[in-house]
């Protein structure tokens, strides 16, 4: 399988995500509700978790219905809590929803096994493992939402950009808010399941931030967002493949780097005194570089000192490994630890003298050794072998197989 085959589906999924998220991101930034996607994603995850509690498995239709229902309830909460002259910012409600949903999810999942894994999965997603059908459904759902937003684009934009005039014109802001959050939740529920909270967040925010920095026209903003999203997804996935890094986090950090570079470049480009701005940026980069160097030096220094680098209980485990199973010393003791076949092989090579002097006195009641020794002796010195086998046959605890072998050897040597 070549890299293209492996990375094709994740890349397609990225494209599908970029398409809708760049657009919704612009709304989110204009509404100043940056963390609404985190909150909705967490609510969706809570829905999945609660469904799991009922025995409905993640990634099933039932669990999708659950998370969707939860998101719609949250959408209603968000549209109800936006007030025309509210004293509490919308972000407070969103933050609270996020924290409550996250904490509740942990409490709920605590009742169900492999909860920790599940929560980690929600955070980082698993875009590398996306399946063809998932990409197809995502594309269909996002296209539907996109169409919906295109048809009512004027209302949506007005409510997002200039809510005051929407109020003045008598537009039911609460309804449009609800529709916005509902369609947003529809998208988020889908994307978080495959891409994870982190990736969805950067897909939403980074292209929109950069586009808004560069231009005021929605069409240009969208084009910038889409181009950037496509390029960064491709580069991020390629980087993840070449350097062998987890795909989701690779794209996220690469996005961050691009945004940082672009905004620094813009800062220099737009500044009235470019030379001075360039000097600022260089100084900043140098400072960051030396901090990084300091971090690396101190990290290495600490790691070499067990007193600082290990918790007490682990250090003691390193110093005192558990007692090992005792290695047997004498020949007979070594034989006792072996299986019957090996015992026969080993004894089959020994001389009558070794067997008599070293093995038999220490064999104790090990029937396997006694039988193998008797058989060997019978071959090299029948006079010595007979009594050993006869003694063995007198025992009552001898297994039928060993008894048959001993008897057989005595009867026709």
């Amino acid at each position, binding site marked *: 399988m070549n*890299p293209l085959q492996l990375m094709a589906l994740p890349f397609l999924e990225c494209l599908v995500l970029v398409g809708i998220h760049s657009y919704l991101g612009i709304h989110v930034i204009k509404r100043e509700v940056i963390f609404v996607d985190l909150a909705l994603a967490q609510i969706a995850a809570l829905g999945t978790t609660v469904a799991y509690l009922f025995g409905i498995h993640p990634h099933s239709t039932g669990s999708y219905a659950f998370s969707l229902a939860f998101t719609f309830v949250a959408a209603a*909460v968000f549209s109800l809590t936006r007030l025309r002259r509210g004293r509490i910012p919308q972000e407070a409600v969103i933050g609270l929803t996020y924290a409550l949903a996250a904490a509740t999810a942990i409490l709920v999942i605590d009742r169900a096994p492999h909860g920790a894994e599940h929560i980690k999965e929600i955070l980082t997603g698993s875009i590398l493992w996306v399946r063809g059908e998932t990409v197809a459904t995502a594309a269909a759902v996002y296209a539907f939402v996109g169409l919906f937003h295109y048809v009512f684009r004027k209302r949506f934009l007005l409510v997002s950009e200039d809510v005051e005039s929407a109020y003045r014109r008598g537009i039911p802001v609460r309804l449009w808010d609800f529709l916005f959050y509902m369609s947003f939740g529809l998208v988020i529920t889908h994307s978080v399941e495959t891409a994870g909270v982190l990736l969805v967040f950067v897909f939403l925010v980074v292209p929109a931030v950069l586009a808004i920095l560069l231009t005021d026209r929605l069409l240009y903003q969208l084009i910038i967002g889409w181009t950037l999203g496509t390029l960064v997804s491709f580069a991020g996935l390629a980087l993840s493949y070449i350097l062998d890094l987890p795909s989701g986090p690779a794209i996220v950090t690469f996005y961050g780097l691009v945004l940082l570079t672009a905004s620094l470049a813009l800062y220099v480009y737009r500044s009235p005194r470019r030379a001075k701005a360039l000097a600022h940026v260089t100084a900043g980069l140098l400072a960051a570089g030396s901090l990084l160097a300091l971090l690396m030096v101190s990290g290495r220094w600490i790691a070499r000192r067990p007193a600082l680098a290990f918790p007490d209980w682990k250090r003691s485990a390193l110093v005192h490994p558990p007692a090992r199973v005792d290695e047997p010393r004498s020949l007979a003791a070594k034989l006792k630890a*072996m299986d019957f076949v090996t015992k026969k092989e080993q004894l089959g090579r020994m001389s009558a003298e070794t067997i008599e002097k070293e093995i038999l006195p220490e064999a104790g009641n090990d029937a396997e050794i006694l039988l193998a020794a008797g058989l060997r002796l019978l071959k090299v010195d029948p006079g010595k072998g007979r009594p050993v086998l006869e003694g063995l046959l007198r025992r009552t605890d001898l297994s039928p197989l060993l008894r048959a072998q001993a008897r057989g050897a005595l009867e026709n040597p």
Partner: protein
Amino acid sequence: MSGRAKAFLRKSRLQAVIFTSVLLLLTCIIVPPGLANEGGRVDVVTTLSTYAAIARRVGGDLVEVHYLCQGDEDPHFVRPKPSFSVLVSKADLFVTTGLDLELWAPTVIDSSRNPRIREGQKGYVAVYDGIHLLERPVTADRSQGGVHIYGNPHIYTSPLNGKIIATNIAIGLGKVDPAHKKAYRKGLDAFNNEVDRRLFGPELVRLVGAETLGKLAESGNLIRFLREQSYEGSPLIDRLGGWMKEALPLRGKKIVTYHKNWVYFTDLFGLNVIAEVEPKPSIPPSPRDVERLIQQMKAEGVRVILAANYYDENKVRNIAQRVGARAVIVPVSVYGAPGVNTYFDLLDCWIHGLKEAFAEAP
């Protein structure tokens, strides 16, 4: 409406939102099951549910057994909960692997403030004692992934080790409850005899003896021995029964496992594990690892992937689908799936799962 009235309304709406959220939160919390302690019984707490199942067999009615890690939970990553401390604080016997599998166990022992079950006390049982550990690392450092510094700690996957574990538990029970030492000895014998019968079949155990069979099986010489030796005119292999017989078609078959959970099991039953999905223990695979694995599986014609049910099923099924292999997703411990209520059910579940997969695989 006055300004104050408006402010009040606004406030009450927010209150309503918070109130509903809190209600939602409360409905999601289920009251933990009662932790009743039956009088007179020895209170045993084990880390893994499999040890609990074995302890219940050995101790019978004399013991009350609880376990901390669920049967379908990853024993490497258990987050200690307050209920753990409560359980352990009144335990007479604490049963743990004793290696570095349950790294969370020392924390639980410490927080329980129960002096009777500290390491080195009568009430502390490390079940690995006497087991020949596989995969002992030459160097221990975390760059190799979650390497266990003493060797592979998933010891109970071999029934032969299960007998040693039961013995260690019985010894521990005899120490904390000397009055019933004989009863524990009896329970242990019954358990170990059942393991032998289920592993080799009752007839072979009678003919050859459990000890001889156990040593042969552990060194990998059993099947050769049974083919070469005969008893009353027929080869001994005809008298083989139990799991060993069931698993005969699995011998030498190539499989891939997700984590090194089954080293002792595959070693005993002669399965050939050619690779793990995880590139290094407990480190999730990257794209390249997956690609490498898929190529290797195709090249070697691997038809079955074995994974614990606490890993992401999608990942396992995804890989299986791409190479046209079967995914066998099983509980790694007792009580980890419906119907797996004893140690014997667990082994049955693994062997049947693998056999079905090989029967279905193209």
